[in-house]
């Protein structure tokens, strides 16, 4: 099992924008340690000189016309999806 500290998990949660409770932090620490321990078996595999495969379509440079496509979705429709909106804008708490 990969040792991963409570601080590491806290840092990961921060990177992931997750504000976890103390209990959840502890149980995720254990799970994540176990999972990383499991996937580490991959390090046994010799991949010297092997190119990575990021996608499996063999497609390259798929072009389309540079034109606006009208999806018939209005700004008002999208604003109604926002948890809070005012003055035709999405409203958020202060940033600073």
């Amino acid at each position, binding site marked *: 099992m990969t040792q991963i500290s409570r601080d590491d998990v806290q840092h*990961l949660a921060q990177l*992931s924008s*997750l504000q976890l409770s103390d209990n959840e932090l502890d149980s995720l620490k254990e799970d*994540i340690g*176990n999972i990383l321990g*499991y996937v580490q078996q*991959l390090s046994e595999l010799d*991949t010297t000189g092997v190119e*990575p495969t990021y996608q*499996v379509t063999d497609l390259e440079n798929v072009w389309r016309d540079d034109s606006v496509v009208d999806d018939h979705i209005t700004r008002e429709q999208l604003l109604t999806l926002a948890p809070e909106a005012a003055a035709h804008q999405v409203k958020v708490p202060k940033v600073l």
Partner: protein
Amino acid sequence: MTHISSLVARIKNGETTARAQVELAFQKAQDNHEYHALLSLTKERALERATEIDARIAQGEPVGELAGVPFVAKDNFLAFGAPTTAASKILENFEAPLQATAIEKLEAAGAICIGKANLDAFAHGGSTENSAFGLTKNAVNKDKVAGGSSGGSAVVTALDIVPFALGSDTGGSIRQPASFNGVVGVKPTYGMVSRYGVIAMASSTDTIGCFTKDVSDAELVMKIMSGRDVRDMTTLPDFFEPREQVAPGRKIGLIREFMTEDVDADVRQRTTEYVEKLRAQGHTVEEVSMPILKHTLGMYYIIVPAEISSNLARYDGIRYGLRAEGVKTLVELYGKTRDEGFVTENKRRIMIGSYVLSSGFFDAYYMQAQKARTLLVNAYNELFNTYDALIGPVSPTPAFGIGENAEDPIKMYLADIMTVPASLAGLPALSVPAGVTSDGLPVGVQLIGQRKSDANLFALAKSMEAN
């Protein structure tokens, strides 16, 4: 004639109506409420569409190949008429402003979406126990899991609520629940069906497919959904052309690594019987070995969480979905919204993804996994130089008990071991029913082909079904 096309014929000739079929589906959904396979019904919209189709038929106007056929979509497909939740709190009340291309194509052919099926939240899981709204029970044995992540879609098909249901398969999420519930499940070649409007999990392996009672029905549904879509630039140029007959004397490889003693004895036995049937049809089946397979789960649980952590970054409580109450700053808003809105498995995968993509570990995990993926693709390619298809079980066990694997994520991940390899390589794979265990639980076998050989796989599976 398939089940679905004969139903369409009966609707067209007036023996029954689209409205009657939709109402029947709603009735069956209600009768089977206890399975909790459905999260919502699109009552108003479905009945409206049925009435419209019936009117067109009455006027003698042309209607599509699926006119009046009710279906269910996994609740990660954006669709009108009900919320699209991904079985998560963060999207609990989300009303999609657009529909998935797959849904649009089916509607254009006259099919009618009657409801949304349960899943593991954001399709993270293999049992549908990770749904934020409660688990789905297996269609054959209510003490067992439905499988997952497309558990609800498999169960509504097995219970005959609708003739077909849609699912997504990123690492087995269609094939495994299909096998657990005794129905046909299709994972097409990556890029055959547009992913547009389906909530993204792992973009490099996400595929769209379906559940049906027989192979011909599945082929029909896939034919309608497939094709290039300008809204999904990873779709391949059109290639899927169903064929009537399988070419004689196919050469098929039985994957040795999936037939070891670790695999349930009944599962192995049913697979062996299917192999014997293939031989009896004049095909050659030989054992093949892919040593790289033992590493595929490791690759999968690096690559997929990495893509998940990116794809799920958009759920931030700003533009749509849940927003946590009582927060003062933006950072708090993100953190609390995501904590409340995601289930534990979502958080595990997001955090694993953050880990393997972080600067100190990127090469050791993510890059190593993508290189290993190349070795997997090469191993498949080498086999497909000799073999027309590969065969093996879908899952090492039949449906497991509710709660049995819930506490141990790795045990749960191991249930995917036979389905993730084809996903990482973008290959088409069918899960077809192959009988039951001594306890009466369904077993599925998996037929895997090279990329874009979907039509050949269907032809082979159809010929087996006929015999």
